[in-house]
């Protein structure tokens, strides 16, 4: 099982559950745990996800049973019942999700059955104690419970509707912008997106998600459980691909979905041509400065698997930068690691990056250092420079050590405020380019 982690970039399953609930419109969590869990975990995503805020009913507004010493001995189920009933009276919500913490799971409180008693009032129960896993596990716990127990079964599927999974709210700091970008892009080829967290979503709409004819999962590490649940409960097949960033990746993404849904090639061709043209009409603006100031960089990425390949793919295939080193912090299964590493072989850059899987920050840094020959005080030294580091805020000091350009994209991001920005699709990639290059010119 999992070893210890240095400078973890994940919260626990309950943290992931709360971050996910906070992204569902007018959803209210009821936490069956000790008093501090809910506010602290919600605070993690408030402060470390581009200042995403606590949301509709987050932070210390979260109804909590406040389990303490005596409940550990005598059980806390009674306390939970009172909490559910008063929450229904005092907090406006379209859905109430009872989630458990470590303490109540360990003493064997049956919160899920208690929640089921209030099913007719849109209450569902989900087991999401911290020890179940990390943030991503909590995301899947909430969504798969919704898929299983809340979303209505529909025999008739809409052949042009997909469920979009794997974009974990908060953990993907740009989740709203990314969802908006992909929803708009897919709309152009006539595909409707069920996204759970998008701008026009509601609990009422989520209830109808059984209508999709395909689930698209944008992560190897999150959304897989939910996609399987959609398959077993609602008979919806799924496909796993990468978060598309930039023209080439977005084209691949559109063609994959079009093929799965049987959309005609002409439709996709037109959209790809128009969007690529749009992309380059803006990218053109930086051509002069990029050439005059020699903006080509070696690139190092310290991220999760959700962002690692998409980011490296974009900077390598579109910007022509040199992918040197990728440290991924979330895939632990050896087989999954091997498969993920293969993606980087598809890059057309002559240099392929070294890909490592490491969740101990200190060791990842050491491996980066070892990836390039040392300077032995020779007269001519081929340095790892100029270098650009894409990671999380944790790597800011590392970038300084190397004198590298730096952009925080992966969680945690506490050095930037993020509102509706996203990096996905053709247009999101323009935002990403802006941010990457702004760092290089910010001192001018």
């Amino acid at each position, binding site marked *: 099982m999992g070893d210890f982690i240095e400078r973890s970039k994940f919260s626990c399953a309950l943290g992931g559950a709360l971050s996910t609930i906070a992204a569902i419109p007018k959803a209210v969590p009821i936490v069956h745990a000790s008093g501090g869990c809910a506010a602290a975990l919600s605070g993690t995503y408030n402060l470390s996800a581009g200042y995403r805020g606590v949301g509709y009913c987050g*932070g*210390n507004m979260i109804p909590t049973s406040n389990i303490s010493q005596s409940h*550990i001995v005598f059980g806390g189920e009674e306390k939970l019942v009172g*909490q559910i009933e008063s929450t229904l*009276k*005092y*907090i406006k919500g379209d859905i109430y999700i009872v989630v458990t913490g*470590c303490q109540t799971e360990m003493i064997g409180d049956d919160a899920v059955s208690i929640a089921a008693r209030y099913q007719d009032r849109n209450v569902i129960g989900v087991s999401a104690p911290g020890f179940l896993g990390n943030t991503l596990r909590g995301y899947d716990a909430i969504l798969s419970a919704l898929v299983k127990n809340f979303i209505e079964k529909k025999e008739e599927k809409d052949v042009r509707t997909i469920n979009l999974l794997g974009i974990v709210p908060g953990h993907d700091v740009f989740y709203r912008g990314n969802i908006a970008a992909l929803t708009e892009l897919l709309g152009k080829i006539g595909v409707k997106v069920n996204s759970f967290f998008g701008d026009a979503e509601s609990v009422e709409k989520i209830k109808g998600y059984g209508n999709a004819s395909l689930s698209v999962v944008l992560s190897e590490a999150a959304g897989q459980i939910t996609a399987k649940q959609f398959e077993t409960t609602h008979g919806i097949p799924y496909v796993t691909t990468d978060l598309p960033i930039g023209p080439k990746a977005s084209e691949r993404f559109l063609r994959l979905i079009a093929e799965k849904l049987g959309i005609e090639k002409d439709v996709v061709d037109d959209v790809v041509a128009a969007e690529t043209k749009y992309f380059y009409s803006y990218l053109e603006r930086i051509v002069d400065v990029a050439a005059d100031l020699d903006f080509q960089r070696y690139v190092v990425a310290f991220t999760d698997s959700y962002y690692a390949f998409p980011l490296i793919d974009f900077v390598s295939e579109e910007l022509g930068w040199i992918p040197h080193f990728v440290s991924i912090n979330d895939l632990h299964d050896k087989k999954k690691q091997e498969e993920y590493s293969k993606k980087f072989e598809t890059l057309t850059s002559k240099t392929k990056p070294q890909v490592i899987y490491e969740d101990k920050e200190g060791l990842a840094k050491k491996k980066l250092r070892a990836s390039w020959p040392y300077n032995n005080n020779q007269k001519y030294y081929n340095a790892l420079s100029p270098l650009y580091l894409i990671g999380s805020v944790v790597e800011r000091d590392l970038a300084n050590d190397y004198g590298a350009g730096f952009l925080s994209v992966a969680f945690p991001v506490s050095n930037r405020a993020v509102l509706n920005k996203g990096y996905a699709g053709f247009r999101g990639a323009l935002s990403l380019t802006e941010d990457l290059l702004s760092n290089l010119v910010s001192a001018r």
Partner: protein
Amino acid sequence: MPVKLNENLKYNYLAADEPPVRDERVGGCIAYCGTCSCLQGDFKSGCAQAQNRVFSQSGGCQLGLAVGIINSLTRAVTIIHSPLGCCSGMAGMAGVRNTSRISRGLPAEEQVFIHTNMDELDVVSGGVEKLKRAIFYAEEEYHPEVISIVNGCVPGIIGADIDAVVRELEPQISARLVPIHCEGFKSRFVSSGYDAANHGILRYLIRDPQEYPQLTEEKQIKYDFQKKYRTSRTVNIFNVGSNSNGDEVELSRLVSALGLIPRVVPLNSTVDDLDHLGEAALNVSICATHDDYLLGHLKERYGTEYLLDVLPIGINCTNTWIRKIAAHFHLENEAERLIKQENEELLEAIAPFVEQLKGKKIFVGGGETRILTTAEFYKSIGMELVGVKAHNLDRFVENLLNDIQDPNLTIEVAAGQPAEELNTLNRLKPDIYIGHAGANGWVTKLGIPNIPLFGAPINYMGYSGAFELARRAARALKNTNFSKNISRHVGYPLTEEWMKLDPNDNIIQGARF
């Protein structure tokens, strides 16, 4: 006649692996809605301490406060023995640690922390092997001076013995190992976390200082004499996580102005600083809720006298703070001269703000000591205090409550519980709110302009802090568009039924848990 705040409290817990929680050691009230005079009566009779609430929301966890202290130490690595959620916010705090250290003139340091990442298997096995590996890893990779092991709820419930791990590994590790028992479920008072961290500091980190003999007898005599003199003039000022470097500079300035030697401990200290904690004539707390446990035990260990009862916020409290310190050294005349000059300068400086703030209604929410002293300041410059809300209420603020002299003042006791607070604020309709992190956002959504009760870069304490308090409140009232817009377009999730409810109806008697 005010009583001593910690009368009858014992400070003899260092033989135990973990300190008693505040519930047992101090007691107090976690749920109250009423007037100041009713609360005083109910507190004396013990009824206030036996209250709880029906509808409850998330409050705090003692683990966070304990880590706030222990993780601030210089060259320290913190190991969180728990699943990944506890302290998961630390990853995003790398810059905060450095800003805080650099503001104090300390070298920047990486924020290194390790989670033992307890999973379902560890719930059964205890995860002790993983913890041991984590300790060796911290030692080998970072060579820190302190490795603290912070115990979360999961190992707390299954009874994993981190003290045994520390005893076993101590001979093999050059860093000082310190186990901290701060499981969230164990206490209804987050302030237990302060005791948990201070217990660790007292029991595991403070060692007898290394003395290096001087070369000649003459030099030795001179050295000993100098040390004795320095110790006799040294005042330890005990900082807290919520105070800024500005606060420390201001309080040190005031102590220096009396001709004494200020030393700020224990946050951001090195283990060497901690070893020399005993070399002081007086230990001065700036908040009894934070560190009575530490100062009480230091008295037992070194015989150092201490002051507990004043938080130097606002003019009157800062005056009292100076007087009490001066009295210990018989510097009463010097103190009065200093106070007179400081007060004159300050009153002149804040006069324009006082003009703007006069008669405006204010509500203060947050930690018990800070809110009562902050409220006292705003009241003293002519604002109308309409209410206060304390996270919890215990013996450490009984004197401050007596000082308020407004029997009908609304007092709410609640950790977090923004629903109760918004309900109260909606009735009282203050012009400005000053509150603890986590509350201000909701108050903005209610449409009330606000400023934070504390914050890392801001000076709140001493005379310069009083100036800042006045200046910031006046500034916040100059343009209130933000809270107006947010309340109109965002709002809060509470029902009409709740907002119409008397918050006291949500309080139940005789149900402590």
